[in-house]
């Protein structure tokens, strides 16, 4: 009998292990898996919360309503008063198609998730009313968004405008777009459309930066020093047997005039003299290949090279070609760095969150970090002014305002080049930095994109708009 009892102990231990494994697994599940599981779209509890919540309103910086929930007796609908004007950046919140844009980024604020305790739920149960979400104020400026949308209408591409002093996004338009009020009707067409109208090109469109990259090259040349910037452009340069050509022979150039006329051969030559490491490390300082900070998810730009980069590839990188890919918002941020004495302000779109009663719940302070020295920033800024006054960017000139910028005409796989313009104004006290890209435009950045940027900046600098 004694040995029976000994074996019995084994069974007791087994039972202990079984019960402990339940307790252990429950705890593990709750700590590591529950958060992910409960966000599953099939979880009817999410919908139930949704149905019982009056989603908060989204405003622009001045209180213009961009998205609101209309409550009738027995239903709630999310309405977007400006239809497709904010289709990407404000996005949509739809039971069937999910959420995008600000509706997605600030969902927990809009739904007032997280500030409901058991007591709050009890209260709401007793009072019987629905939960009221918080209101979100974005940094967007309705007038500028309106202008940007008008300027891009009928075209393909993106416009991003930021305040270089704070990183606040003032306008972001991506075309083609869609009407968030008519999602159910249009959805089938939208998802198969090859022009990807659902994609926010401003944040996630990946383009070769073309000649706009030369501002970063100029910073690299100034930061490293020691190379001769003077050059006699003959219209072409042979690198390892490949010929790199310019539109024409520019003749004798220094760094300033090279940027102004956007001379490919001189920038390629200087890049080769600087070497791969210097060029790539400056690009990395400008967050190429690194994720940008800020309160919105931005596609990380691509610069898939290491220090052993081939000379032909290095020459291509110098003029923003090769395998370089970048988002429009990042190029607006790059322009902003030169506008802001070399300090990059993290791009952000949330101005503040207010409770339904109007109490401020959340507001973000501007965050900045130094990318290049003020001297180099200001030197490049002066050269960017020359681009507009005497170079390829003359179409961005605004009378009475000093404008700095850089054009780009990016070659790509389609055969039709993209037209770029990045810049800021006024150059002596910058208030707005922009990036304009017109996809497969076929014309140069100076011809097609610079006037768009000029219109937008003119509008922004009108008395009373940004103050």
């Amino acid at each position, binding site marked *: 009998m004694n040995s029976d009892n000994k074996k019995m102990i*084994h*069974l007791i231990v087994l039972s202990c292990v079984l019960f402990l494994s339940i*307790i252990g697994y429950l705890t593990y599940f709750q700590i590591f898996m529950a958060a992910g599981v409960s966000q599953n779209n*099939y979880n009817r509890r999410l919908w139930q919360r949704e149905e019982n919540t009056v989603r908060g309103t989204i405003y622009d910086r001045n209180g213009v309503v961009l998205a609101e929930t209309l409550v009738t007796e027995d239903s709630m609908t999310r309405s977007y008063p400006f239809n497709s004007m904010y289709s990407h950046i404000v996005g949509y919140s739809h039971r069937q198609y999910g959420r995008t844009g600000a509706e997605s980024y600030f969902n927990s604020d809009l739904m007032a998730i997280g500030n409901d305790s058991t007591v709050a739920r009890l209260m709401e149960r007793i009072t019987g009313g629905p939960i009221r979400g918080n209101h979100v104020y974005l940094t967007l400026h309705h007038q500028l968004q309106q202008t940007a949308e008008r300027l891009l209408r009928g075209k393909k591409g993106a416009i991003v405008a930021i305040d270089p002093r704070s990183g606040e996004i003032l306008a972001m338009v991506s075309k083609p777009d869609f009407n968030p009020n008519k999602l159910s009707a249009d959805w089938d067409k939208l998802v198969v459309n090859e022009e990807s109208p659902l994609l926010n090109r401003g944040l996630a469109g990946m383009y070769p930066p073309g000649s706009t990259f030369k501002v970063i090259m100029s910073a690299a040349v100034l930061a490293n020093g020691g190379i001769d910037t003077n050059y006699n452009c003959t219209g072409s340069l042979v690198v390892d047997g490949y010929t790199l050509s310019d539109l024409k022979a520019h003749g004798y150039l220094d760094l300033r005039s090279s940027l102004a006329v956007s001379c490919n051969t001189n920038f390629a030559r200087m890049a080769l003299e600087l070497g791969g490491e210097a060029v790539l490390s400056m690009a990395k300082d400008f967050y190429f290949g690194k994720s940008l900070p800020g309160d919105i998810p931005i596609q990380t730009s691509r610069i898939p090279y290491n220090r052993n980069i081939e000379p032909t590839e290095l020459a291509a990188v110098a003029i923003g070609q090769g395998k370089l890919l970048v988002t429009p918002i990042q190029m607006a941020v790059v322009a902003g760095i030169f506008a802001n004495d070399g300090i990059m302000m993290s791009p952000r779109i949330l101005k503040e969150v207010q409770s339904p009663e109007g109490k401020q719940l959340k507001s973000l302070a501007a965050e900045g970090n130094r990318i290049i020295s003020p001297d180099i920033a200001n030197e490049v800024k002066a050269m960017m002014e020359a681009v507009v006054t005497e170079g390829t960017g003359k179409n961005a000139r605004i009378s009475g305002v000093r404008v700095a910028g850089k054009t780009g005409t990016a070659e790509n796989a389609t055969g039709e080049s993209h037209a770029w313009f990045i810049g800021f104004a006024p150059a002596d006290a910058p208030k707005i930095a922009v990036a304009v890209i017109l996809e497969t435009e076929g014309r140069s950045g100076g011809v097609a994109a610079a006037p768009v940027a000029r219109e937008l900046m003119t509008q922004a600098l009108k008395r009373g708009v940004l103050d």
Partner: protein
Amino acid sequence: MFLFRKLVLGRPITILIFINLMFFGLLFLMVGPYDRSILVAGVLLTLLMVVCYYLIIKLDMGDQYIFLIISILTSLGVAMLYRLNPVYGFRQITWFGIAAVLYFMAYFLFRWIKLWDKGIYVYIAGSILLFVVTFAFGTTVKGATNWIRIGSFNFQPAEAIKLFFIFMLAAYFKYPEKLKNTYVFLGIVYLHIILLTLQRDMGMAMLFFGVFISIYYIYQTDIKLFLYNIAAAVTIGTFSYFTMNHVRVRFDTWLNPWKDIAGRGYQITQSLFAIAAGGFFGSGLGLGTPGYIPEVHTDFIFSAICEELGIFGGIAVVLLYFIMIYRGFKITLMINEPFTKVVALGITLTYSYQTFIIIGGVIKLIPLTGVTLPFVSYGGSSLISAFVAFGILQALSKKSLEGEEFVELEQR
């Protein structure tokens, strides 16, 4: 006042009264719109339990804790059922009333009749008869043909077979010579398991095998034969995975229920959503939405408990079962007579493994199979068979105390 102090304070039954007070108080405030019937039901249930408890003490029926623990579990079950659907809650109280009577009947019958250890043929015949009846008259519920409909009542024969099986094992180990040899015995055991598998009642098949192999482990004299049994089980398991579609589905949805949430993985994912929604402290009784889980009042009641009482509540329930099992093992260890020892062990293991199988299933620790959560799930058959089993255990606890020196800490 003195009487109250003597009868209530300082007795463990206080805990039960207190728990029921909170459960039914909360139900009254949160779930029913101040429905008086909830209070009546709560008082009725508690009163019934208190009376039974005093009977057990006054009649000196041995272990004082078994009934207390299963009463707390039953109360939790009734409270949850009331919250899910008052009709189930009320019916469960009725079942409890019947079960409590049968608890005492089982106690006395087991003590009065002395022939239990000689009835191996009766037990085998009883099981087979019930199986035959199930196959002949059974109705299919949830894909398993294991219900018999009598009038408006559904009865699950496997719950009774469970007890026959335990008694059969015990009788065999007392008088192994009654069966021709070990192989006849093994044949009868596997007949049970195969018949359950044919009924598609995989949970019960697993349970029967677990109980058998555990007891066999203790009494086997031939380690080789024991290992053959394990090998046989693995073979049957693998074989049924490849030949029986529903077994494969069960296994695959266990591995990845997220692949087909709307279809095959629906039950288990809804269960996981509920547990995740509850967090550590739960949404509070009546504040969650466990109604989204299919079969929430039977197999998935543990998920509802986790949603509304949190996994701390869930863990508390697991610990209650743990104490219950501990009492069972304690009784088993104190008995020396082989028949009663195996009966005690069999009952303890059955409810230990059954608890693990269903809780493990609904939290996706093991593949999900449909067995009830003892004492908590809705259902007359399972509640009654569990109370009968623990009534027998109560009798065995009394037996184990007779002739042993045993100092009870409680003052009588």
